[in-house]
């Protein structure tokens, strides 16, 4: 129904407008309806990273697009918040400053939600309160190990 779509849209838009500057450390973003008819309208993502000009998501850089999408996905998640949220390597295209803010957002969300995230990123690993390592020491067979991050970083350091 029109009313239901509008209400959903407004809630997602409000969350998106809040998550974007948290993840980007500034700037702004919003969702735009492309037509007046709520039953047929499309939704357009407008984003303005800090210092840049407003544009559709398609004109952003690779990392900016990914982070903008994450802001929208967090907002969609909060529409219907589950006890947990699983993330698979969404920090891959981000620079260090953006990973830091992504991690701060994960930390804040973890007040109410169990955040479980797969990552190769050192900053994200350091953020975790509990770090689970997965290994395949026996070929083809996965096992868990508890990870002592200081030890792991020391081994990885060159």
């Amino acid at each position, binding site marked *: 129904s029109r009313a239901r779509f509008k209400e959903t849209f407004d809630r997602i838009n409000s969350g998106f407008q809040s998550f974007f500057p948290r993840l980007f450390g500034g700037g702004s973003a919003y969702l735009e309806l492309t037509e007046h008819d709520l039953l047929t309208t499309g*939704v357009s993502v407008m984003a303005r990273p800090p210092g840049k000009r407003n544009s559709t998501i398609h004109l952003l850089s690779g990392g900016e697009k990914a982070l903008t999408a994450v802001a929208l*996905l967090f907002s969609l998640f909060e529409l219907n918040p*589950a006890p947990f949220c699983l993330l698979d390597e*969404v920090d891959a295209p981000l620079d260090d400053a953006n990973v830091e803010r992504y991690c701060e957002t994960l930390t804040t969300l973890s*007040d109410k939600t169990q955040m479980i995230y797969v990552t190769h990123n050192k900053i994200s690993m350091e953020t975790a*309160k*509990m770090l*689970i390592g*997965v290994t395949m020491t026996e070929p083809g*067979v996965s096992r868990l190990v508890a990870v002592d991050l200081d030890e792991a970083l020391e081994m990885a350091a060159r």
Partner: protein
Amino acid sequence: MRLKTIKLAGFKSFVDPTTIPVSSNLIGICGPNGCGKSNIIDAVRWVMGESSAKNLRGDSMADVIFNGSSARKPIGQASVELLFDNSDGSVGGPYASYAEISIRREAARDGRSDYFLNKTRCRRKDITDLFLGTGLGPRAYSIIEQDMVTRVIEAKPEELRVFFEEAA
């Protein structure tokens, strides 16, 4: 409602029974390429009722069963269990009074696929009914992967609308 443990046995590369203790609200999972991290995510999606093999990165539903390694033979059955703490009573319906809620799925190579709620066999619908209002489910936004990120980025305005309709 909070997740306590994820248990896998025979699921993809987790041939040996494995318990993931969800003992913190901020858990990182790391490890080399190909060690099984995304398989854990597939397992959660699967036990919550995912019925499309494509969304589990396979061609058929039997592809989630451990199919052997150089040292081990393939096995015949896979199972995944999510154990929830419901001491806050936030899960409604017939299970509101349970302090713990376990959902479990088993699959065998002959195509058999069974669901269990607190050890009692049930239908997939009972699992998805349980999830109503909890934000859980195989297609909910509680699982965010690179694939989803890409689809959001590339979505035309009419496609993004569909995302919103499904989320409503």
